[in-house]
């Protein structure tokens, strides 16, 4: 089913999403990938505040290529989410509502998604030029020294994603294999 939703998202709408739904997101996403997650993890250990508001928000696992003059961002597709599996359950427990990435998640992450009523979306990997067209602004808000790995606040408009793990824990990657595998 095709849905057009705002991010941050109404609780009811988030809970109604099902694995396989095609969703166009409009609103705010925060980018963070490996190095930013490591720093946030260390900040939490040191009892410091995180540089971005987690409560109700969505993280996009992405490190863009540099923007050309007059453009908000360069190529901007998802990176492999499993590298953030170590950090994701804690962030979900602290109020993060969803993640956009690509690829499988660990069982710990799936459990944290169910426990907190969250969602994991995939954007199409390797479609960074196309996806950049749905990003209307980008601003570095923390860890600027990390370059492409800095935390950015993005404004997105009709940004296309697919629900991979819904709040009930259904996983589209598993469902797809069941449906399409023709292995003997």
């Amino acid at each position, binding site marked *: 089913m095709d849905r057009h939703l705002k991010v941050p998202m109404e609780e009811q709408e988030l809970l109604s999403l099902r694995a*396989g739904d*095609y969703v166009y997101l409009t609103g705010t996403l925060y980018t963070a990938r490996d*190095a930013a997650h490591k720093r946030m993890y260390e900040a939490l250990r040191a009892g410091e505040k995180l540089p971005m508001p987690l409560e109700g928000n969505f993280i996009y696992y*992405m*490190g*863009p*290529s*540099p*923007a*050309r003059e007059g453009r908000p961002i*360069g*190529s*901007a*597709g998802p*990176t*492999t989410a*499993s590298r953030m599996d170590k950090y994701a359950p804690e962030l979900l427990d602290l109020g993060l509502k969803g993640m956009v990435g*690509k*690829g*499988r998640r660990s069982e710990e992450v799936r459990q944290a998604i169910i426990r907190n009523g969250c969602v994991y979306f*995939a954007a*199409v*990997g*390797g*479609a*960074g*030029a*196309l996806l*950049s*067209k749905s990003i209307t602004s980008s601003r570095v808000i923390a860890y600027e020294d*990390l*370059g*492409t*790995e800095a935390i950015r606040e993005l404004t997105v408009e009709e940004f*296309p994603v*697919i629900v991979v793990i819904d709040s009930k824990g259904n996983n*589209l*990657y598993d*469902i*797809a*294999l*069941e*449906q*399409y*595998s*023709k*292995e003997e």
Partner: protein
Amino acid sequence: MPEMKTIQTSAVAEAVAAMCIEANHFLTDDMKAALSRAGESEIAPLGKQVLGQLQQNLEIAGEDHIPICQDTGMAVIFVEIGQEVHIEGGFLEDAIQEGVRRGYTEGYLRKSVVRDPLDRVNTGDNTPAVIHYQIVPGDEMKITIAPKGFGSENMSRIFMLKPADGAEGVKNAILTAVRDAGPNACPPMVVGVGIGGTFEKAALLAKKALTRPVDRRSADPYYSAMEQELLERINRSGIGPGGLGGSTTALAVNIETYPTHIAGLPVAVNICCHVNRHAVRVL
């Protein structure tokens, strides 16, 4: 005695810079054709939609000059140097690294290289590249640049099989690597395989196999048949475009082989995503 040909390092740097930019914005014709064929044959509606987006993505990348993928890779460079070539103007490797530096900086490409695998400080210009030199007959220098993304690189594997494992063992190893890669490697993938040689030779063959056009099968009929069989089996796995299910999981399996030791059967599987990029130039 054959004549020497002189190649200036400045020409090398210039070619390398241009190729880094070209490879990150335009796929080769064989890759484009394979993706568009897949769009027609894909059976899953969502899979078809993903392949359509990849087509659109290529058009936008070319027209608006935005890299096809934000992971513009670590630059892997194969340099075949004719033994009649004389290099002038400085150290060849410096010129190649300079070309990479310029290409990634001037071309708005992402800087994805860290100076040390553990301290992980970004070098800021995507150098150093990984360079493989080969001395060949003739008076030309052939440079191939293949920027490699790590979503798929991370899913690559090496298997040191036993001779008794035979062809079945080899096929199982390849299928295992592809299944484990699944949605993480941005399918549809291109699967580069190196069989034989030593530990490092197999890996190098697998990497080189990715630069062979996807529509060109192995010259050896035995391995050509194996490539075909594996491609069909991979596409029955159900992984599909983006891992969201379907009949297009790989576009090609390219196998390269080399003689090996009586005690061994190394198999390297270098997984590449649909952004299987390369640019080639002969100086």
